[in-house]
């Protein structure tokens, strides 16, 4: 019961039992849908879903804790590459992919803890955080881009420079390999668990303290909270969630390249989160799925301007729905009416 109370906390859209009944029906519907569609469509579905954890992490960090990171893809890349290195070197071992998955997420957490320590314990101004995090991911991209030579290998795995790392093993548990449709079920389950965990976190007392830090960090420190430790913890958690997306991505496509952590990819999670509404996990999950589907649909129908359209959408949403379109429609509109939903700052919110 306590778990359900945490899920239905006031910090996100959807608190009623009816909402959760609808949520369960939608989730069951997606599982059912995955059984009916072709392998190709199931693979696409898994890809759209795999981007949700990184967006949830950014929502926690930016929307709930007030720290914008422009470099979440760094952890996406670190997890992807580490998984490739560990699983590649343990090829033939049935437990290799599981150990690789755990190792890569631990690696993400360790890198984020060290990098975040310097950001938060040095008490840098929070507007500098996006610049530092973006710089970190661009440095990582540049470094990985020059790893083309034969000397850049770890054990038997080549890093591959800008051509990237190929032949990364799929995920498996003992003898059960997750690929194609089974990977879609696995990704859906993983993403669902990430979502429920994040909801419980923001519904808990720790979630309330995150909001307090976002509202007024100094006030919160002067109520006895070590805000540096709290911000660092959320930063590490967001990095692990980004790592889960990276993990799902390499398990899905069996390759990764440095362009996955470049400037363009770094901006995408910020767009997904801002368009849906950064302080709602539900809104972020929906907008991430829809924008990935839209981007893929536009690209696959031959539009060269898919990213221009997505960028234009961001500009339009920021102009008319600065709190995010889903948050404006589902939360601000019922509470405060059209005027507040359209332009919260003008209406004094």
């Amino acid at each position: 019961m306590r778990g359900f109370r945490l899920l239905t906390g006031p910090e996100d859209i959807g608190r009623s039992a009816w909402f959760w009944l609808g949520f369960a029906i939608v989730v069951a519907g997606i599982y059912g849908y995955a059984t009916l569609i072709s392998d190709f469509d199931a693979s696409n579905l898994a890809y759209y879903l795999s981007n949700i954890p990184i967006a949830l992490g950014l929502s926690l960090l930016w929307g709930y804790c007030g720290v914008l990171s422009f470099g979440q893809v760094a952890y996406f890349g670190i997890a992807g590459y580490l998984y490739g290195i560990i699983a590649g070197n343990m090829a033939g071992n049935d437990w290799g992919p599981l150990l690789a998955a755990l190792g890569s997420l631990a690696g993400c957490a360790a890198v984020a803890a060290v990098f975040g320590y310097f950001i938060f314990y040095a008490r840098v101004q929070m507007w500098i955080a996006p610049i530092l995090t973006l710089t970190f991911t661009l440095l990582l991209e540049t470094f990985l881009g020059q790893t083309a030579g034969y000397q850049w290998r770890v054990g038997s795995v080549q890093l591959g420079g800008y051509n990237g790392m190929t032949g990364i093993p799929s995920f498996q548990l003992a003898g059960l390999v997750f690929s194609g449709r089974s990977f879609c079920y696995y990704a859906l389950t993983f993403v669902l668990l990430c979502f429920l965990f994040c909801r419980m976190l923001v519904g808990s007392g720790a979630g309330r303290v995150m909001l307090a830090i976002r509202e007024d960090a100094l006030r919160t420190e002067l109520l006895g909270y070590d805000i540096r430790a709290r911000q660092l913890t959320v930063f590490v958690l967001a990095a692990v969630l980004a790592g889960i997306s990276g993990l799902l991505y390499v398990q899905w496509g069996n390759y990764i390249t440095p362009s996955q952590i470049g400037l363009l990819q770094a901006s995408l999670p910020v767009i997904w989160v801002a368009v849906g509404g950064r302080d709602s996990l539900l809104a972020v999950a929906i907008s991430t799925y829809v924008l990935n589907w839209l981007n893929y649909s536009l690209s696959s129908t031959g539009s060269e301007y898919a990213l221009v359209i997505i960028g234009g959408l961001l500009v339009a949403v920021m102009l008319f729905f600065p709190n995010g379109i889903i948050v404006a429609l589902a939360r601000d509109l019922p509470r405060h009416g059209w005027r507040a939903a359209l332009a919260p700052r003008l209406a004094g919110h």
Partner: protein
Amino acid sequence: MAASILATERLAKRFGGVIAADQVSLAVAPGELRCIIGPNGAGKSTLFALLCGIYPPDAGRVLLKGRDVTAEPAFRRVRHGLGLTFQTNRAYHSLSIRQNLEIPLRAERLDRTHERGQHLRYALDEFGLDPLDERPARELPHHRLQWLEIAMALANGPEVLLLDEPTAGLSPEETRQTARVLQHLNRSGLTIIVIEHDIAFVREVAQSVTVLHQGRVFAEGSVESITAHEDVRRIYLGRA
């Protein structure tokens, strides 16, 4: 005399060429209600920031319950028993009144005072605040927001309450109500330090007064001795 619960020793802070605190030494006894006054630019806000750890001092020490906390970050001083409110209201305006109180209640304290619950309940009753109120704090009128912030500081369970101009923007009646509550809390054992501009309020509540001028302690003593002090009247009270 009992050992000081909060003391400073030759505290100094300079911002560029401006000396904001110059050899400030204070000693506040347990159970005291001390007011710190001074004209604009006297260094009151700097002293507040140095006491709660927002700025590190250039020289000198801050002692809380006899323990040197000069190098300790602000949150640790709070955990050791310092509670405070700011000059400009810093309650969480977008959070509910209940959440505003829940956040300090959840905060870690190293040595909790058993009076915490009593102090908080008394203040909530007297200020007419409902701890289960789900309205956003921004819907409260200014005086209740000021009182909410005092209640938040009490929810922390402090042994020393440091208030920076708690009556700013309050009507005379609201100021009197604030004075009544602070006096009651003080009588029940809470040490209170008030940085204040409103001399009428100071006369009503203070047991002792420290006057700051140009970053230095200019005079110290009872309310009567301070109000009778010729130089204090000249630099400050004469213009009040």
